[in-house]
């Protein structure tokens, strides 16, 4: 029993964090709002090269052979950086599904040549980056299939977070069966990965706000010296402190099917997503309130994370939906 990350996990996380800081600064996120495909130039290839797309692929398939415990911290950093690519969908859901199905498609997936998003029942009617990806892993009648871009059509839907390019998809052509991959597991992975991103977004909002209220003065004092502001931000910190461990714990659960049956896994994932959704919701509310009017402007970067936070808190199940699933597992 040791609830701590290994040095290797820490180092890999730090490396990816540096990459995001380098290739995906706020200007890049903002640019993805307006450009044609909603992407960050060069980022995907760099991620592929670093092995980030291959974290959950087994070593004998050319992957890193790491597990969800290592991946969630990467996704936390993706949330912190505001990465607009379907990294979670690809690396946390599509790649392991392809691996579990023993599909040869995995090679192009982990190499970055085929960029995936996912269309799962737990994700609601809209699919992230559907118009720009090369393929989908989709849930079709309870089973998973791989769908190349020419086998589905898209109808765009505009998100309040315009770096989230959403669309409804309709499967129209031939799909590759992914027998051996489990749709329930895929949904749990997506919820877990979204929870990890929520934590990252919450941390970013908190850091940005702590910095701002330390500098901004009103009535002759830094805004951050007022007790009301302190307590808002203390609450955000508490929310993060007590949701992140549930994300890590759920990652362990997903990574260890031999000791975690699907009900336990689902319960653990739902604990993570419900608390992470609540944490990022509270972070959004407090960050905006403590910034005041400047936070309410389009030009100031805070809005990039506010909108991401709102979207992710409700995506792949909101806090209440996941608490319902925990309640079912508790048989209450």
């Amino acid at each position: 029993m040791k609830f701590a990350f290994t040095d290797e996990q820490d180092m890999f996380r730090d490396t990816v964090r540096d990459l995001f800081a380098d290739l995906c600064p706020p200007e890049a996120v903002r640019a993805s709002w307006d450009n044609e495909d909603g992407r960050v130039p060069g980022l995907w290839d760099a991620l592929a090269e670093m092995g980030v797309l291959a974290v959950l692929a087994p070593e004998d398939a050319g992957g890193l052979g790491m597990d969800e415990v290592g991946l969630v911290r990467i996704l936390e950093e993706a949330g912190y950086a505001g990465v607009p690519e379907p990294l979670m969908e690809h690396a946390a859901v599509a790649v392991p599904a392809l691996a579990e199905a023993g599909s040869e498609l995995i090679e192009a997936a982990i190499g970055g040549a085929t960029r995936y998003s996912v269309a799962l029942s737990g994700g609601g009617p809209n699919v992230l980056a559907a118009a720009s990806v090369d393929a989908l892993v989709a849930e079709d009648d309870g089973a998973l299939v791989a769908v190349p871009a020419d086998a589905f059509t898209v109808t765009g839907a505009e998100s309040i977070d315009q770096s989230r390019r959403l669309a409804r998809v309709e499967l129209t052509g031939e799909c590759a069966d992914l027998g051996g991959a489990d749709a329930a597991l895929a949904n749990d992975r997506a919820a877990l990965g979204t929870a990890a991103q929520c934590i990252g977004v919450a941390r970013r909002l908190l850091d940005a706000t702590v910095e701002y209220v330390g500098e901004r003065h009103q009535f002759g004092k830094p805004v951050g010296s007022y007790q009301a502001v302190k307590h808002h931000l203390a609450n955000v910190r508490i929310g993060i402190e007590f949701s992140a461990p549930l994300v890590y714990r759920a990652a362990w659960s997903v990574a260890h099917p031999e000791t975690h049956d699907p009900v336990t896994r689902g319960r653990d994932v739902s604990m993570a997503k419900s608390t992470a959704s609540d944490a990022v919701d509270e972070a959004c509310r407090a960050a905006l309130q403590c910034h005041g009017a400047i936070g309410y402007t389009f030009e100031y970067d805070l809005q990039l994370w506010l909108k991401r936070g709102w979207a992710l808190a409700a995506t792949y199940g909101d806090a209440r939906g996941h608490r319902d699933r925990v309640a079912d597992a508790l048989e209450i």
Partner: protein
Amino acid sequence: MDLELASRYIDFREECRSWLQANNPGQIASMDTPEGFEVHREWERVLFDGGWSVPGWPTACGGRDCDLIEWLIYEEEYWLSGVPGRVSANGVNLLAPTIFNFGTQEQQDYFLPKMASGEHIWAQGWSEPEAGSDLAAIKTKAIRDGDHYVLNGQKTWCSRGAFADWIFCIVRTDPEAERHAGLTYLLVPADAPGMERRPIGRLDGEPGFAELFFDNCRVSVDNVLGEEGQGWAVAMAAAGSERGLNLRSPGRFMAAVERLTALVRAMKEQDHDVDARLRDEVTDAWIKAQAYRWQTYQLAAGLMEGAEIGSEASLGKVFWSELDLELHATALRLLGDTGEVVDDNDWLDGYVFALSGPIYAGTNEIQRNIIAERVLGLPRR
């Protein structure tokens, strides 16, 4: 206590409702776009021609001399009818009471009718980059030069400021004075030489705000409202209205919760599950809108007997702004995982707008300080 409406009020409600139904232009473009601003100005004109622009004003200024009860009824009907919002709100609600109180006869005669008809749309120029909640930190200088002031400085967060015709400002006419002293309330035409404005995108991307830059901008001394150096006292009278009855009448929220309950009924008809949690939140919002309504009628009864609203206005500001936020958040929870989608999602627009409520017109943190210190009498330090 008498909570039955006299028949003249019932008739008034009916007249108001009929007129709004007959003249509703339907959905029009956002007032925070250049086109939408002008379409809204036209709507102001329609209201004015029908006598429904400023019903609480004297008939001489374009109103119909309504009493407070009538005004509250008008507001209820206005918002329930679904007609467009008021691009004139800053002027009508915040500036006009100040002009009535402090304006010269010439100012009243000139400004009020044009405000009522939509010929002048007003923006508020109070906040500065370093003077938000701390309004007394205003630095924009206005130095007397003959029959003009020469303005230098910067204003920000001017709602409607991108397209408005006039801006009501607070400026520092005595640079030696500190804090609340030496301030003056000044009316500035948008075409004043030496003023530039830059639209600021709001959270939703629309230019709902503007920054104003004054570079030796000349404004006639005739445009002072009240006395030079008395700007703080003059402004605070308007701040009372801003946080009080005028800014957000109950009708707005009563209409919003009716839409919310209608949403629940529509979802249930389509066999969507609305569980006890959401039902409870919707009901709570509905009750709070009623609470705000009856608390306002109670205030109105006092006002009609000559009482004044003071710091108690802060109670209402906290209450309606948090109600507005909660009711929209509830709606988004009802919509579930399509809540982030913008298309035809009035609730999301409303949520984003509601998020500004606890911030503007004095943050709710400041309001709670005011309640504690001035209503409850807790020690300031």
